[in-house]
């Protein structure tokens, strides 16, 4: 099997890698590039733990081939904070205890970032449906929704 | 002398008794004497027995004293999630 050479942008950095044709972008990020923030909870697009933003679209990186990233822009949770300054969503997730085990958290943060980019003032219902592709088994979602609401109001004010 | 109540299945293993009078100052001594006097209980003791003393369940504190007049109730060792 011939490897595919890929040149792409991840969190603003130029990155090149060689991957197998059937290797998912999630596996590339985690196993080849050491970006383990995105998690594999199911590998079938049903849990959202591997969420990333690919050319401004929220996707499950387990449903993208590594080869497809050629020439595109990838954003992962590792790129959310600026230096030691957390993104407002990250800060609000901490303040509201919107995580217990935390394994779904990177996916939620990325999905919420995408949601607020497209809808800066969402209703509770819009948040709930906007985050329906991300499973959380610990929190019952209550504190996650509140954290996103709070982050939205902070970001609007900023 | 304390009176010890056995849960249903344990009673069957002790020859159908649901209450046993035993001279024991703490849980360690209680288990030792139970095993001596009722060999049928030994596998249960090895598997784990919890002791409720006045409603509080002790799973592992063998040094726990058995106060006179306290209600001593044996239960299977519990598991949790």
């Amino acid at each position, binding site marked *: 099997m011939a490897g595919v050479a890929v040149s792409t942008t991840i969190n603003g950095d130029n990155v090149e890698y060689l991957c197998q044709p*059937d290797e998912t972008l999630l596996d590339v990020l985690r196993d080849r590039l050491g970006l383990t923030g995105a998690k594999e909870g199911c*590998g079938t697009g*049903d849990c959202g733990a591997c969420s990333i933003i690919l050319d401004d679209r*929220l996707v499950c990186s387990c*449903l*993208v*081939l590594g080869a497809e990233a050629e020439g595109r822009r990838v954003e992962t949770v590792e790129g959310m904070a600026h230096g030691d300054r957390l993104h407002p969503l990250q800060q609000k997730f901490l303040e509201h205890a919107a995580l217990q085990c935390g394994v779904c958290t990177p996916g939620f943060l990325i*999905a919420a970032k995408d*949601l607020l980019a497209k809808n800066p003032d969402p209703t509770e219902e819009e948040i709930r449906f906007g985050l329906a592709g991300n499973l959380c088994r610990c929190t019952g979602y209550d504190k996650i929704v509140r954290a996103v609401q709070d982050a939205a109001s902070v970001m609007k004010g900023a | 002398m304390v009176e010890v109540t056995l849960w249903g299945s344990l009673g069957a293993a002790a020859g159908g008794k649901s209450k046993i009078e035993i001279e024991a100052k703490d849980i360690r001594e209680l288990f030792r004497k139970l095993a001596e006097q009722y060999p049928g209980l030994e596998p249960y003791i090895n598997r784990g027995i919890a002791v409720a003393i006045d409603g509080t369940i002790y799973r592992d504190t063998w040094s726990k004293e058995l106060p006179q007049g306290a209600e001593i109730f044996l239960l299977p060792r519990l598991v949790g999630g």
Partner: protein
Amino acid sequence: MRYIRPHSLEEAAGLLAGSTGTAAILAGGSDLLVRMKGGFIEPDLIVDIKAIDGLGEIRETAEGFSIGAAVPCALMGESAALKREWPGVVEAARLIGSKQVQGRCTIVGNLCNASPAADSVPALVAAGARALIIGPGGRRTIPVEAVPTAPGKTSLAKGEIIEAILLDRRAPRSGDAYLRFIPRTEMDIAVVSAGVNLTLDEQGAVESARVAVGAAAPTVLLVEEAAEVLIGSKLDDATLERLAKVCSGACRPIDDKRGTVEFRRKVAGVLARRAATTAYARAGGK
């Protein structure tokens, strides 16, 4: 295994036609990658069609809309014109998977996966949509209902690719709607579904209608008898009850992990009735 990203349809069709082993088209990948992960398919060749010019676009033409095979469903939701003219088709497409899946999945993929429970297909069938196919023999156009032939099987020949889905421009006083039943509010596959497309006459009575039911037979059902029930009516209660009964009666469902025969039969009718009511209102009916 090879991964190839051709830049023209002809090149893609040629690759597929010339492949010796298992070849797979990759558009959104939301079905293909799941099947690969589960070990159900190990393609020797993956043809990624997203770099082909125009395939990622929704084009408005004189006749209507052409939705390219690589258009993610999320993009359909962003097209104001498409939403205005075919709200039922768009809402069906927007029900496939999560927001993450929406960023990838396509209605052509949904059609070619040939699941009886595919969300966009009943709406497309009701809309009278057509599939534009390119292959070794040139181009041809067929109704979407002629694409899936059985669960997991299509009528496409080796080397054929669906290039786009074509939707007509709307006649005045038209409306469509799609409803599906899922146990949760999101993330499920339809247990049963119904799509209804209506055009009213000037008096507000139904002039023409198409009714499709999903997940109730090996392929999506176009229920012509249901359309006949609607035509000439103003969707009074008796008509709606008859519609429900006809749709329930047309079902040939199975018991499976997602639902029972009885449930699917009953709810197909309920959904058809509710979808018809919405489509009627969208068409301006009162």
